[in-house]
């Protein structure tokens, strides 16, 4: 009896264990399957990031700084915050927009559109660009002005806003690159609204050639221009030639005069041997005479040039830079002869700390010292 009872008990236990084991295995497999399915879904979702037809990207740059000048109080300054929006559809269209936020002396914030374009990639060698774009004349304004790229905390004399170098245009442009003679050529051709001549009633003179990229061409006079660049990759040498021509009208408040001749000529180069970065640029804007003008019948020339050399002390993160430039205008008070010497520290390739000493002389106006110490921390993102 006991033996029979023992056998029955063992059999019952075995059946029970088998049943439990079977149930556990089934649950485990289902759970595992669910985890695999979930992982598969996550992988598919992650893959969607890699090649969707529409891409959105926020880039840009910002900088903060400190200035101690001879003829004004020292000050901390929030230089620029310039987010750049990229919206791209496939390899066909890209919308690019850069906003520029700045804080002025009273603490107010100003916002402007630095550029906003719709780019259509026509083929491998050409893109159509429409909207407000940085002037393609020369190199500094279109490619070197972002503070994380510019190796000096200031723009070269004459290359700031509304000085000798055209800043922006509203119009259309074709640009691209193509192989030429075993090297690379690049080009930009545009038609735009052009500039206006800002009349200063107090001084009775044309104060500046304003090139902010005007949204309405009141005088209807267009400017046609462009730049051709030739790059020799093996020697890292590039040179560019720029030219533009059209009409520009003197503006006094809301009054516009008849258009007069307007021309821009420029030449630039870049050379990157070893740890050196050497570049230079010349740009000239001029407007012609207008015999019928009731303001100023004479023409005017605004021109500027600079050369800059930088050297990286690799493998350290230190860099030295020196720049010389001149800015010449019809008004002696605006002219500048400028030296800058500086030391930079590259926290990363896109994060740069700068310490500069800027010597500004204006012998045309009898000034021999308006020097500045400039500190800047710039981040390109």
């Amino acid at each position, binding site marked *: 009896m006991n033996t029979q009872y023992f056998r029955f008990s063992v059999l019952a236990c075995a059946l029970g264990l088998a049943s439990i084991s079977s149930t556990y295995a089934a649950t485990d497999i289902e759970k595992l399957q669910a985890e695999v399915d979930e992982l598969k879904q996550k992988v598919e979702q992650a893959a969607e990031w890699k090649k969707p037809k529409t891409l959105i990207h926020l880039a840009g740059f910002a900088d903060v700084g400190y200035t101690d000048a001879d003829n004004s109080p020292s000050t901390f300054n929030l230089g620029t915050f310039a987010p750049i929006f*990229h919206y*791209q559809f496939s*390899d066909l269209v890209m919308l690019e927009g850069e906003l520029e936020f700045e804080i002025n002396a009273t603490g107010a914030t100003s916002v402007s559109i630095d550029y906003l374009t719709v780019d259509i990639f026509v083929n*491998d060698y050409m893109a159509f660009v429409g909207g407000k774009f940085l002037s393609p004349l020369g190199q500094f304004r279109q490619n070197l002005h972002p503070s994380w790229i510019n190796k000096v905390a200031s723009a070269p004399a004459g290359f700031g806003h509304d000085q000798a170098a055209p800043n922006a245009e509203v119009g259309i442009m074709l640009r*691209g*690159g193509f192989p030429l003679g075993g090297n690379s050529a*690049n080009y930009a*051709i545009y038609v735009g609204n052009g500039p206006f001549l800002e009349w200063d009633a107090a001084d009775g003179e044309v104060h500046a050639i304003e090139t902010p990229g005007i949204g309405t061409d009141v005088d209807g006079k267009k400017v*046609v221009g462009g730049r051709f660049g030739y790059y020799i990759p093996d020697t890292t040498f590039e040179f560019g030639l720029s030219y533009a021509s059209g009409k520009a009208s003197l503006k006094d408040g809301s009054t516009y005069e008849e258009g007069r001749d307007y021309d821009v000529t420029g030449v630039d180069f870049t050379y990157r041997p070893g740890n050196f970065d050497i570049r230079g640029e010349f740009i000239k804007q001029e407007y012609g005479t207008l015999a019928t003008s009731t303001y100023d019948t004479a023409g005017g020339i605004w021109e500027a040039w600079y050369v800059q050399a930088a050297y990286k002390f690799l493998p350290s993160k230190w860099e030295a830079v020196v720049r010389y430039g001149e800015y010449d205008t019809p008004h002696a008070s605006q002219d500048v002869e400028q030296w800058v010497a500086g030391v930079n520290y590259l926290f990363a390739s*896109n994060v740069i700390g700068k310490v500069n000493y800027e010597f500004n002389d204006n012998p045309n106006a009898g000034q021999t010292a308006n020097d500045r110490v400039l500190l800047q921390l710039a981040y390109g993102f």
Partner: protein
Amino acid sequence: MLIKKTTLTALLSSVMFTAGMSSVVAEQETVGDFTRGAKAWSQNCIRCHNVRDPKELRDDQWITTTFHMRIRAGLTGQEVRDIIAFLQQSN
């Protein structure tokens, strides 16, 4: 009138240039090449700025960034595809 003629001439020239270029690209490649991309990346970025590490951005961000640079630096479409291939495969 002179300006209108100038503008018209410029636009016409542009269209003709576009047409001419289109015939050149009839047999263009559609994929990027890692080796050519590495060379184009090292030779072109330094024209204006410090070279950026491929690991700084995600793969999709490199696409928009490189197309942006196509406009800025006058790169060809093939150079862009090559550079994207290099950056994404090095990421």
